[in-house]
């Protein structure tokens, strides 16, 4: 493994971690697997594409992508998930799959099934020393990703709203009795998760400059894997899981014998972790009442 592979892995891991944060927060607070989370990334990517096409300003594209994703995330929660609160997880999961399909179908009808180049500006490649080759976009991903994750951790730990979020995730009813507006907290969770997904979509586009209606599915599932590996519901866990998975993926891709089996290896890790330690690296033990 070269240092370049490792840094590439870290930066891919940062993308997974950002997406995984959305999964893990929604799972922790709304107690549901938001299957459509991956497709939010796709919507973000198409927003970037459209903005660049019409206005050509990357900064505006970033802002629009975040705004559109946040609104979409909140609307999805209100329309599709809120009516099912208290229903079985199976019902919610099937609905979430439906939402995911809906977003993909609409994107395909609007933009076509073919991948289109988004046209983000290219970043220069840095040669540090003899062996290390790093793209500037990788460094931006790592830097901004780390800052966002630290900020989120501080927000959850220190702010009043963050503590309300923890309260809702621990015991929704008790939090409600304590005067926490649960609906607002859940909406906010979806908003934060979607915003992070939008940022992740921009980083993803820096690595793979095309977007298609199914852009979000694979990173979505892999980020969920990352969230599970780290321990679902745990924010530092999502980061650790994301980085771990990113590095593993890049290492597998760099070894010719393993390259074709990369997806299989990643999913096998998921299955093994779920079998051996279903609550992940940092997850809490979950108890069932009899």
């Amino acid at each position, binding site marked *: 493994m070269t240092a370049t592979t490792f840094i590439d892995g870290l930066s891919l891991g940062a993308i997974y971690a950002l997406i995984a944060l959305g999964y893990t927060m929604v799972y922790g607070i709304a107690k549901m697997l938001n299957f459509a989370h991956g497709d939010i990334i796709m919507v973000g990517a198409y927003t970037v594409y459209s903005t660049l096409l019409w206005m050509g300003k990357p900064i505006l594209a970033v802002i629009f992508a975040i705004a559109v994703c946040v609104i979409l995330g909140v609307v999805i929660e209100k329309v599709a998930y809120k009516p099912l609160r208290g229903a079985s997880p199976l019902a919610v999961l099937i609905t979430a799959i439906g939402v995911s399909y809906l977003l993909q179908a609409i994107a395909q009808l609007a933009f076509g099934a073919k991948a289109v180049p988004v046209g983000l500006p290219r970043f220069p490649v840095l040669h540090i020393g003899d062996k290390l080759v790093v793209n500037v976009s990788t460094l931006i991903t790592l830097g901004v990703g780390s800052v966002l994750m630290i900020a989120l951790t501080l927000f959850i730990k220190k702010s009043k709203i963050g503590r309300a979020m923890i309260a809702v995730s621990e015991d929704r009813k008790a939090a409600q009795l304590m005067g926490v507006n649960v609906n607002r907290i859940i909406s906010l969770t979806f908003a934060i998760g979607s915003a992070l997904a939008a940022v992740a979509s921009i980083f993803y586009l820096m690595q793979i400059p095309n977007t298609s209606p199914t852009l979000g599915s694979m990173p979505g*599932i892999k980020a969920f894997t990352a969230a599970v590996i780290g321990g679902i519901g745990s924010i530092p866990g999502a980061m650790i899981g994301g980085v771990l998975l990113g590095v593993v993926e890049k290492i597998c891709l760099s070894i010719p014998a393993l390259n074709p089996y990369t997806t299989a290896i990643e999913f096998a890790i998921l299955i093994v972790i779920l079998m051996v330690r279903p609550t992940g690296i940092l997850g809490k033990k979950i108890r069932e009442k009899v």
Partner: protein
Amino acid sequence: MAGYFKSIRDGFKLRNFTNYILIAAALILFLILELTGVLRRSHANLLAQVGFSIILAVSLNLVVGFLGELSLGHAGFMCAGAYIGCFVANQLHKTSLPPLVTLIVAMAVGGIVAALFGFVVGLPALRLKGDYLAIVTLAFGEIVRNICKNLPWFGGAMGLPTEQYGTHLFIVAFAVVLLMLILTQNLIHSKHGRAITAIRDNEIAARAMGINVVFYKLFVFVFTAFFAGVAGVIYGYYTTPVIYSSFTFNYSIEILVMVVLGGMGNITGSILSASLITVVNFVLQSNLSGDQAAIKYLVYALILMVTILFNNAPAFRPIKEKIGLQAILSRVRKKFGLKHPSENPEEIVDDSAKWHRIPTKIKMDSILSTDLKPADDGTLEPDPRQEDKHE
């Protein structure tokens, strides 16, 4: 012995045979059309497709509707069955066996191998449930696909070329459907079926009744994987080559759409919706071009969301009681003075396997199946009267 004949007479009520009659009648009708030469080749192919779709939908319904676990890897089982069954068939075609025998052997081998995979997927099911198990099945399906893509014997990225069976494939497909329906329905209306639905409704109580939850979960996964594998072999005969890219997660979802539309735990529903969706797909495919094909996915998405929301959201309950299918049927019955069998005090009805609202069988945050750990005993349980009501 007298009891034996008495209950056999019980078993011969017409309504217990609707599904068999449905399939047999369809088979005979199309057979006549085929023999008189009216049936077009493309339609015969469509029928074969309807056949394996029904197999897939009914077998998935056994997992989702009866065991109450979501499997997103059904296409993975199908993939395993298709590749291995057709691989065996290709070898057998070199010998002088009649094609029908080859097909049957291929189906058996494909089914058994898929059943082994089902066993492997069933193992996590002993420990996990709900969302987590769904993701494991999804991951498993992708792993199977990824491996099949890279195995040189299976043609790699080009796929595995297969022999075609011809227009009579639909006869075999329908025969398998009939066999599977008989086995599945017999299973459901036995103590084993009751055990499976009991696990779905309340796993903790099912354990307390002495039900071997481990056995039944594995059993359901093995049983359904077997038939998904058989469906895969029929698929392989229907189209060539067998290629990994056909068995994506999207295909698993398509099967799930059939189950959800037909009603969970409702086998007749699965048969009808599988036929409907397959035929509609066929029509759409020949009429929609390029990106318009997404309309299909739009419809799938709406089916999933609307059906689930309509049946499960508390807000929709009053509407459902007014315009739901059950409500309309009971109004029609009232109008004509008919009685539902369950209203007849002399009758013993055993169709309660059907369910519409998905039971909240697990506490929201419980994911582990066997690893039961206590909450401190004294924490207040919710008022039992409100246990099943929504927030």
